[in-house]
């Protein structure tokens, strides 16, 4: 089986989110301080990175790693440059030159609450005072804000920078990796077509951010939110897994969705996409 660099980066990012979620839930249930959660999550991240490197070292002869920007650059320098320039421009323009759009979202407040109180949801994030009646458990169990707050705590970076600049940029890059996988499925070894596809993805995102509910508007305006991650990273990657019949990757994606967005008891859009795909597959088979 061929392991692409994009696959590795995406799957290890997903694994890191799952491990972070497990530590977060453990801390929540055991009512431990938030700092414990932060350091456990950091340890988990180190574990994923070092484990991944060790895995690559021990398996370097068993699978061929393909991909890498260098290869594209040598063969198609103009297209590669254009694509990379668009990505850099999007990061600088959308995350560096715009104010964050915080309507309908309190991730920043949740992060500050965790960091200030060193407790998980001991206060109402919107006021800083104790809850009168509490908050819904379905939202409490989502570990994304805790993961971001952990990044802030361990690195010392400010909450606004982590939440509104760093994380959306990471999500943007993961989104391109997901679409690179789709490009690889559609065009195989045709690197020129793959690059053209990615350039058009960049342009669709850039020109298509006119409404809040478009993928790219979600990404550029509120790239830190679970819904944005689902729209630009998880669902394209799930589509790629379904097209390639890589069901382990699909299950991993479904679990990550469960960690970042409130779903119907785990039945998120990834599962729904798989079901629709199954029906579409039957239609293809009958033809």
């Amino acid at each position, binding site marked *: 089986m061929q392991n692409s660099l994009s696959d590795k980066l995406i799957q290890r990012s997903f694994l890191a989110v799952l491990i972070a979620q497990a530590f977060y839930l453990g801390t929540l249930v055991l009512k431990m301080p938030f700092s414990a959660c932060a350091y456990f999550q950091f340890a988990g991240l180190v574990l994923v990175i070092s484990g991944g490197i060790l895995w690559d070292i021990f398996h370097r002869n068993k699978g061929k790693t393909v991909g890498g920007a260098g290869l594209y650059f040598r063969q198609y320098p*103009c297209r590669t440059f254009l694509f990379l320039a668009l990505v850099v421009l999007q990061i600088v323009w*959308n995350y560096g*030159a*715009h*104010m964050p*759009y*915080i309507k*309908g979202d*309190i991730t*920043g*407040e949740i992060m*500050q*609450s965790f960091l*200030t*109180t060193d407790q998980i949801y001991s206060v*109402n*994030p*919107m*006021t*800083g*005072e104790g*809850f*009168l009646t509490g*908050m*819904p458990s379905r*939202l409490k169990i989502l570990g994304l804000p805790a993961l971001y707050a952990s990044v802030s705590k361990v690195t010392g970076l400010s*909450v*606004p920078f982590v939440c*509104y600049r760093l994380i959306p940029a990471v999500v943007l890059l993961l989104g391109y990796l997901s*679409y690179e996988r789709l490009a690889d499925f*559609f*065009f195989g070894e045709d690197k020129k077509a793959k690059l*053209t596809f*990615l*350039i*058009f*993805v960049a*342009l*669709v995102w*850039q*020109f*298509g*951010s*006119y*409404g*809040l*509910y*478009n993928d790219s508007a979600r990404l*550029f*305006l509120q790239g830190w939110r679970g*819904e944005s991650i689902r729209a630009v990273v998880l669902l*394209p990657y799930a*589509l790629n897994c379904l097209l390639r019949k890589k069901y382990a990757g699909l299950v991993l994606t479904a679990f990550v969705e469960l960690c970042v967005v409130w*779903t*119907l008891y785990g*039945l998120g*859009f990834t599962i*729904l996409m798989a079901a629709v795909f199954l029906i*579409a597959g039957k239609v*293809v088979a009958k033809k």
Partner: protein
Amino acid sequence: MKLLGLMQDGYTLFVKDGQITVLYFLSLFLLWFLIKDKQELFKKYATLILLLLLFPPTAWLLMKYQTTFYDYVNLWTLLPQTAMVAYVLTVCGEKLAGYRFGKTKRKLGEGPAIAVLAVLLFLCGSLTLFAHPTEETGRYFPKDVEEVLEYVDTSGGEVYLFAPEEVAEYARIYDGRIKLPFGRNMWEAALSAYTYDTYDAGDGEMNDWLNGNLKGLSETEVSENYFSICSSRGFDYLVFDKERVKESGFSAAVEKQSDYDKIAETGKYVIYKRM
């Protein structure tokens, strides 16, 4: 009828300011009827999910599936719009690049073909982001708001700030040690999903008073009363819009009260601190 109304509202939200979705429809048409292609499964998934989203009974089922916490418009995330449009444009770009002009028989070339399709894409979309303030380039918070928050001293621990909504909504992102009497869910209904806590009519009136929206009452008397309440509730900082402080009734109340001293004035706000 309610279902159709919800669907119509959701679809309008999705497409109202641009037409990339039209390119999706066009892409599907091209894939079905003009482009000989091997991506059968992708094409059929893209078609089926579109039909499921547009057909009211299936849309109703999907809405039930995604729980009542999300609106119909959120379902459109399932549409592989970016992948479909980018894929068809790539395929069309290759064909367009090989197109020969008139008598010269010169090919259009790949660069111009991509440029033509990029222009088409641009015409269906927009260069500007949805509702995104650009005048505050590179900032996390509006300048006026940050100026106020810089005066709130949290070096000694938590402080209580009572400020207009546009200041309060950024205060706790700015510093977690700033506490607020009312959360953003008071004026931003969607955020009520994050807590079971609610506010009573009295809280709403107090917030209206601060924001200058409490009308029809004697301003001086009401303001004196609210200053007293603010003090008894332990609010450390009060922030008012500059224009509000200039109102005669309100300014008379400010003169009469003795709990708060003016500590600063910014371009838009006046800041008082409890003595």
